[in-house]
């Protein structure tokens, strides 16, 4: 029964939320309306009655869309994002909006204005970020799939830390219309799934050209799910050994190396590759992403929507106070960094330089992917860290994204798939990075890892 599946998801979301804090709103009323619509729909839709959780920076008409920020705390979106429109048309039901780092800025979910999300494997640890709420909604068994967003690893890193699949598609694969902008040249909607089949199912429904996002590309959308066959014989996988270096946790290294050996046994050919400029990825990212954010977040001024500071008696003062009171400390840190790198006299030294190194990072991928079908790296250098452990050191937090940011800089697709548990019983993720439009290949590789390195253990907090 469609309604019992949806009601079970809603109940689980509400029951687990006091422990995990992964949802900012559970949308019972909306779900009931959708069930009504579905019951009057003739025939079976591809995602008929499929429950889905959505990150709170993706617009859902009439529902809260706060970006986990005080400045949008009471904002209700006035339209649906294209991805939501397509999910609805396919029969899916949004059951709630998920917690996140404020405006998707963070790698631990500790930057939410509405409290930290807990990792269901160990509630004293972070789920990763910025899409931590969506990752936890899937990892805790509330839904099989969820939407997140990525600017530098915000789907793959929490997927890795929570033991699920996280896909960042090619830039232009999924329309960004209705995704609240952070850094427009890097932003993507991404998908979490309990398995790669779940992610494939959702991707097939939401990918494709949309006239309302000029950067969405007119490239045919295959049925990604039907292409999952675990056939990887003859596939060439590139390993950038130089990146398996300092700061990489031993358990993570072992799990990834072990999985590479297993993939070889399955008939994949392993080759060594080099990504010489990948180590500059974080530096390039924190210039380009903050520059674009400082510009995109200029729209929050207390005039058209969201929070307005009360005690201002003239316009400019109202802007200054609204933004000061409405934004949290990481968001202000990045707005200021972005303002600095774009400011008069510094533009060439920082922003223009970063754009040139970004071109080099992309060239690295083009060269490497000419020699292999996909690149393998760890997704995150460590497993889930403790809440509070890195929150006083922004730079240490930024380095959590060392393996993920460069795919966003290059625009190529990448996927994280669980490949083992650490000695502390925490999930470890492996990342495949592929050429433009190779989502099908990446999903199939991830599916193979699920088959050859299955993880039977469930998180400590799990619905059912």
């Amino acid at each position: 029964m469609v309604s019992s599946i949806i009601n079970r998801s809603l109940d689980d979301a509400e029951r687990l939320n006091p422990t995990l804090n992964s949802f900012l709103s559970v949308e019972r009323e909306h779900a009931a309306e959708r069930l009504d619509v579905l019951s009057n729909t003739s025939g079976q839709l591809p995602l008929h009655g499929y429950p889905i959780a959505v990150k709170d920076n993706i617009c859902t008409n009439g529902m809260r869309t706060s970006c986990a920020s005080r400045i949008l705390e009471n904002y209700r979106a006035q339209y649906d994002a294209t991805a939501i429109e397509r999910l609805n048309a396919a029969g899916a039901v949004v059951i709630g909006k998920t917690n996140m780092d404020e405006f998707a800025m963070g790698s631990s979910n500790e930057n939410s204005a509405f409290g930290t999300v807990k990792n269901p494997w160990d509630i004293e640890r972070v789920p990763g970020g910025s899409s931590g709420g969506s990752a936890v909604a899937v990892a805790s068994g509330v839904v099989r799939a969820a939407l997140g967003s990525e600017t530098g690893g915000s789907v793959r890193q929490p997927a890795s830390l929570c033991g699920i699949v996280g896909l960042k598609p090619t830039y232009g694969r999924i329309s960004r219309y209705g995704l609240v902008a952070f850094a427009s040249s890097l932003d993507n909607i991404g998908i979490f799934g309990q398995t790669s089949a779940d992610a494939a199912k959702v991707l097939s429904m939401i990918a494709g050209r949309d006239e309302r996002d000029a950067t969405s590309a007119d490239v045919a959308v295959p049925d990604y799910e039907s292409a999952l066959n675990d056939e990887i014989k003859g596939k060439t996988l590139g390993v950038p050994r130089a990146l398996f270096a300092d700061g990489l946790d031993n358990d993570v290294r072992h799990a990834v190396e072990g999985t590479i050996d297993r993939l070889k046994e399955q008939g994949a050919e392993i080759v060594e590759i080099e990504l010489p400029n990948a180590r500059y990825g974080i530096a390039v990212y924190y210039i380009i992403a903050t520059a674009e954010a400082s510009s995109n977040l200029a729209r929050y001024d207390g005039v058209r929507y969201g929070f307005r500071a009360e005690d201002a008696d003239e316009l400019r003062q109202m802007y200054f106070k609204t933004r000061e009171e409405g934004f949290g400390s990481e968001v202000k840190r990045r707005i200021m960094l972005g303002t600095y790198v774009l400011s008069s006299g510094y533009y060439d030294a920082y922003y223009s330089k970063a754009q040139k190194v970004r071109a080099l990072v992309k060239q690295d991928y083009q060269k490497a992917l000419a020699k292999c079908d996909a690149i393998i790296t760890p997704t995150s250098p460590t497993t889930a860290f403790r809440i509070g452990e890195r929150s006083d050191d922004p730079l240490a937090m930024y380095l959590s994204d060392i393996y993920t940011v460069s795919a966003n800089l290059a625009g190529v697709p990448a996927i994280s798939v669980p490949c083992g548990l650490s000695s502390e019983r925490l999930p470890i993720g492996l990342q495949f990075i592929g050429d433009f439009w190779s989502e099908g290949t990446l999903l199939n590789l991830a599916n193979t890892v699920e088959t050859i390195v299955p993880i039977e253990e469930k998180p400590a907090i799990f619905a059912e």
Partner: protein
Amino acid sequence: MDVRKIAKLAHLDITDAEVEMYTPQLSQIVGYVEQLNEIDTSDIEPMLGGLTAEGEKTDSIRDDVVLASLGQETALSEAPSAVSGHFQVPKVL
């Protein structure tokens, strides 16, 4: 780095305590990103966005026809203050 000046450019009314917190943090991050100066980029064209070749080729021009838009009532419905079909703001000095 003059954090107060940057905050002013960004329209943020930051406090003394924030100036104290952000000054060393931002200097540390800027120090980190300056490692890019070790790379010779004199012959490199800057990469402006994330578009793929297929994305570049995609025609972004749509037919010039009127489509439904939000409408005034909806557009104003989330405003902190709206009156007679306008957004209302404090006086502009």
